Structure formats: C-alpha cells, structure tokens
C-alpha cells in the first residue's frame, strides 16, 4: 500500500518538489525555526528529504529507534506537542499547495502522525 502511495504522489520528483516549499515554511515559522536552523542547510535539506520520502510512503531506512534518537537532543531543548503539530500543518499545507488530492494528503498525514511518540520521546 505504501509503495502505491509513493507512486500516486509522483515518487522522488514529488519529494523534490515538496522539500523546498516545506523547508521554507518551517524555517519561516518562528515558533519552530530554531529546531531547524542549522548552519549546514544542505544537511538539513537532506534530512527533510528523508522525512518526506518516509511520509510519502517511499523507500526509507527509518526505524522508530532512529527517529527517537535523532529527536532526543531536540526534546531536551523543549520540543513538544505544539511544535509537532506546527510541522504537521506545514506538511499538509505544502501538499495542498502542490494540489495533492485530499485522500492522499490524509494517507501522508497518517504516516507522519505515526512518528508522534518517537519524535517526542514518549
């Protein structure tokens, strides 16, 4: 089912189209930008690409454990529910901007939502 979603969205090309829109939204949002404000912007874009690929149901190597470990330093800095929701909103807005049909957006949001506990270290 996941592969089907990734193909329906347009595969890697869709990730490439979405990543700049998504990352610009996140960086422009002062309530969360400090979690993403890295001097190495190329590395940050790489991370956002991996995340989007996963959320789009594409091939990825993410495990819940990796997710948890990667976000642990951010949780220490105060990452919480409101930040998670803000990122989710930017993701859904990005997809709307790209005219992705609502049923596919729902599928993407479900995958993104499944990372909730690992991201917040719950």
């Amino acid at each position, binding site marked *: 089912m996941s592969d089907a979603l990734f193909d329906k969205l347009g595969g890697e090309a869709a990730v490439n189209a979405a990543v*700049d829109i998504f990352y*610009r939204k996140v*960086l*422009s949002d002062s309530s969360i930008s400090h979690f993403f*404000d890295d*001097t190495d*912007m*190329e590395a940050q*874009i790489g991370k956002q690409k991996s995340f989007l690929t996963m959320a789009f149901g594409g091939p990825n190597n993410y495990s819940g454990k990796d997710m948890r470990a990667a976000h642990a330093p951010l949780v220490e800095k105060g990452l919480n529910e409101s930040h998670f929701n803000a990122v989710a909103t930017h993701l859904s807005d990005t997809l709307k901007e790209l005219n992705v049909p609502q049923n596919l957006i729902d599928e993407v949001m479900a995958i993104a939502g499944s990372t909730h506990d690992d991201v917040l270290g719950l």
Partner: protein
Amino acid sequence: MLFNDNHIEPLKDESVLDALIRHQHDVSYSCKIGHCQTCLLKCREGTISQQAQVGLKATDVNQGFFLSCQQPADSIKNAEHIDTKSLFVSAKVIGKKLCSKDVCRLRLELPTQMYYHAGQFINLKNKHGVSRSYSLASVPQLDRYLELHIRLMENGEMSYWIFDTLEVGEYIEIQGPIGSCFYTEINKQFNIVLIGTGTGAAPLYGIARDALNAAHEGKIIFYHGVKHNSDLYLDSELNNLQLINKNFSYEPCTTQEINPKGLSGRCNDIALENITNVNSTILYICGNPEMVADTKKRAYLKGISLDKIFTDPFDRKELRSKKRE
C-alpha cells in the same frame, strides 16, 4: 584511542581534534567546522565517519585521511599525523603591497602550475607552523601568480607575521586548492550576485574575473560591504572592471560613513532587496561567517534554491579555541 602511539582517553561525543587539544598534543587546526582541511590526520585503525571526509580528494580518502574536527573520537582506534611534506608545497613571495590600512595583497609563485578555480582557498603555513586559510583572488587563465588578500586581524598570528616579517623573495608553504565556491559555466544567462564583506571580496574578485573571462552572458553585480570608504581596497580594480565590461557593475556599500559614489547600509541587505528574479540568479557570499549564514538563509527563504548559492565563510581560529556547539 592511540595517537602517534600515545594513549588518548576521549570524552563522550568528543571529536578526535578536541581530544587531542585537551591532551595538549601539537595539532594544526583552523576553522573547526570541517572546511579548511588544516586538521587532517591519517587513520590507522577504526571507522571514519562520512562527514569527516566531505570535500577531500579521492587520493586523500584512499589513504585514510580524515578531518579530525568532524570525526567522533570513539570510533577511531589508532590515528597519526600526516607527513605534511605530501600536502604542502613551497611558494615564492613575488609581491606584497598594502592596499588599505589593514589589507595587504600577497602574490605567490609556484615552481609548477597549480590547477585551481578562482574563489577556492589555500592554506598557508609559516616557519612557526602556524596555518591559516586564504581565498584565491587570482584566476588561473589570466594570472601567472596566486593572489591572496590578507587582512590584519587583532592578535592574528599569521596576519601579523605576513605584515611584519614576510618579505618578497622569501618562501612560504601552501596546501590546496580546497573549496567549492567558484564559477561554473552551467548557467551563463543567469545573473550573478556577489556579496562580500571585508576581504570576502578576494574570492569574489577572482570569481567575477573568471566569469567575465568565460564570456558570462548574464549580469554580474559585485556588492562589497565595509565600514569606511577607506576600507574599499579594491575600488580602482572594480571600477576598472565596470568600465570595460558592460554586464559588470560594482556597488560599494559602507555602513559607518556616507560614500558619495556608493550605497549606504549593509551590503547583504541591499543585495537581497535588489534581487528580482530568484529563478535566474546565482549567489556567491563570502566573508564574515554570521553574515554568510544569515544571507544564505534569507536568500533561500526569498526563493533561491540552495544549489544556486555558493559560500565561503571566513571562520577565525581566534574564536575557535572553545569547543563548537
């Protein structure tokens, strides 16, 4: 970890370089952000992480060289100094000229040709073993020498030595070229916007002349940001370029006094404001590291894609004695 056969006990999350500094080993380093390649070491045994080999030549990777500032110490079991003779060559100083109160232009000659792009940088090492990075303002197709613009830094070990001690006719050790902030002919119709503070103008001067020499078709706009009019040390050179090239314009920007022939304000603010077509603009940003990071981010948010933004942040070792966050 063993280093040159001495036992080192690294702390949690410590880099190889920080562990060696803490154990008072005599190691060279400069930027501490994996850029300058001054802190290269050779791994005898252990696992080198990917980020510790970013930007290295394939031949260096094959020999197990790694950037010790980017390498977690816990995955290296045994490392050693690199025989620096293999990294450095001797260059003769053939010109030294004061261009403003605190900038001097150094011209170097090599026994054999060096293949480089204008805008890349080299590391200089003096007799006392002090090593620092300087960007190349020369263009290999146009100049027979390497040109560097040295800014006298407060308590700058290398810059004071160059200003006070180094003389024409003497030799200095150089390593390089390094870096990926240079002109390519891929988008010849695009406008090129060059933003440089202080001696950040050096690599940009090379890049601008390289692009003009390659008959770049889009506009090339050079924003040089300084505090005072007297800091515009490339004024006559850049005015000349403007005179002889229709598509080149020079915009001197001063923050502390009015320039009758230039603009008042921060060069990055002015440049970003004047960018109209984000889809056909290439940006080069060099100089003060905070300015570079800030301008890069704002340019990206304005809509310029990251692969069209090239940067050369001038990190200073004087600020690097503490561990980086």
